[in-house]
């Protein structure tokens, strides 16, 4: 018999977190307006700061999103030479980057980066607030096995990186030095073999724990309370508002070319973004 315990993801049930994240990503990506993307990023940051469990930090995530945003802006500035206001002119002979670097392309790159930041912060609670098994449990029954497969695959990515570092360090201790492309065979081949071995071991462990024998069970069934329902309804309303206005052809997007201009902002959509802030208001229990 299952017990009903308080939700592990702060005050919200894992399913509420999953719906909230999906809605926030939808709002962030349904238009390329930097105002809405910035608001979603700020809302998600507030939600994370309130809901982050003790012992978890935002440092790595912060560095990741800032690097991603800076790269997006940089690539757009260097590759796109359209725009009325040139900041710098690189020699035209330079392949790809040659030509004027414009304020407009910098602004558009910034908007792209802001979209990345908003989307990453929106899905961050699934990794930082919830445990991996909470996310798997929050999936609908039909997607449970897919969720496990995806989670396992993502886990192998970090495992591959760890193995690469270990093998490289071990080879260095044996006198290996990185030279040409061929020299990396001595690191890559053992890394791939170890990754395959790890995958086989993981599959055997999952089979030993009766993976695939039936629906995954758990000791405690996370409860879905009225508060979770309110958060879900608010998040879905925000996403529906954005998608609905997009389908109706309302001007939501922003395009700074050829001359920079302020993005169009609809007050109703600003309120819609605020609907995503409900988890921050709910807070985290002590």
């Amino acid at each position, binding site marked *: 018999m299952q017990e009903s315990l308080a939700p592990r993801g702060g005050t919200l049930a894992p399913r509420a977190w999953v719906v909230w994240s999906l809605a926030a990503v939808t709002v962030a990506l349904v238009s390329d307006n930097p105002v809405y993307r910035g608001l979603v990023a700020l809302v998600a940051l*507030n939600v994370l700061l309130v809901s982050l469990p003790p012992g978890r930090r935002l440092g790595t995530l912060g560095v990741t999103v800032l690097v991603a945003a800076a790269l997006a802006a940089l690539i757009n500035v260097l590759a796109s030479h359209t725009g*009325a206001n040139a900041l710098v002119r690189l020699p035209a002979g330079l392949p790809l980057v040659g030509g004027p670097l414009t304020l407009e392309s910098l602004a558009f790159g910034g908007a792209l980066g802001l979209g990345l930041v908003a989307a990453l912060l929106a899905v961050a609670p699934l990794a930082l607030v919830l445990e991996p098994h909470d996310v798997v449990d929050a999936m609908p029954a039909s997607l449970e096995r897919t969720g496990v497969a995806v989670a396992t695959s993502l886990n192998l990515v970090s495992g591959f990186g760890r193995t690469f570092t270990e093998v490289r360090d071990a080879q260095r201790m044996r006198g290996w030095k990185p030279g040409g492309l061929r020299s990396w065979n001595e690191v890559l081949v053992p890394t791939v073999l170890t990754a395959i071995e790890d995958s086989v071991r993981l599959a055997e462990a999952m089979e030993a724990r009766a993976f695939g024998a039936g629906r995954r069970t758990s000791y405690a069934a996370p409860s879905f309370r009225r508060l979770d329902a309110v958060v879900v309804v608010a998040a879905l309303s925000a996403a529906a508002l954005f998608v609905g*206005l997009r389908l109706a052809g*309302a001007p939501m997007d922003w*395009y700074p070319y*050829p001359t920079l*201009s*302020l993005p*169009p*902002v609809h007050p109703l959509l600003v309120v819609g973004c605020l609907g995503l802030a409900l988890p921050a208001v709910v807070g985290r229990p002590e």
Partner: protein
Amino acid sequence: MRRRALFLPAALLAALASVAPVAPTVPACAAAGSNHAALVVEHGDGSVVTRCVAFAADAISGEELLNVSGVAWSSQTFGGFGDAVCALDTEPAHYVDCPGKDRYWAVFVARGGGAWQLASVGISTLMLHGGDAAGFRYVPASGVPDAPVSPVGVCAAAPAQTPRQSVAASAATANAATASTATAPPIALRTPVAANPTSAAAAATAALALSPVTDSIVAATAPPGPRVPAPSPSGDPDPGLLLAAGVGGGLAGLAVLRFLSGRRSRR
């Protein structure tokens, strides 16, 4: 796309059926619609083409305004931004890049008889209501584009000029359109432009060859679009933008406070 497919034959039918002289005292397109929007096209050499478009619907898109005006044009779609004007009224006669690297068509909008403001959305997304005006000026790619000549008087002065043409753009209202003319200049309707720039340029050139350059009144019935406050890139501050700035500032302040209090509690 389906709307455009319906729109073009309807406009063609109406154009063929309803070209006639216009009474000088009554707005020529009054029967086709109570709302009027002005179109101002200023070429690179300074020559100006104006049109007054009447429409029965609440609003008309910039794309529909151009289609009904009879001024030939071609465009390229830029995702959610909408369509950007590549060529307008034979300028440029040929193009490869859109917008052009040296010169391009800057799009302006004047709301309710106000001053020109640079449009921040494409013409397919730009919505015009009665009394609004859309302006196009062929400007150099560098620097802030100058606005075209004022739209004041375009819709008021046009009925007194002859000859005129009137184009009703709805099959449903084609018979109701009252205007006709004895001297019917060739009418250039927009040719849909493919994504391929080469074929787009060819199509544009074909369409532009038919373009008349005369002041006229044209009429249309346009489907109503979603009423969203128009952006104001310059001039009066956009209330939505002000609200977003306030909300964003508040959220940023809260995030900083929470971050600092979290650090303090960890110590």
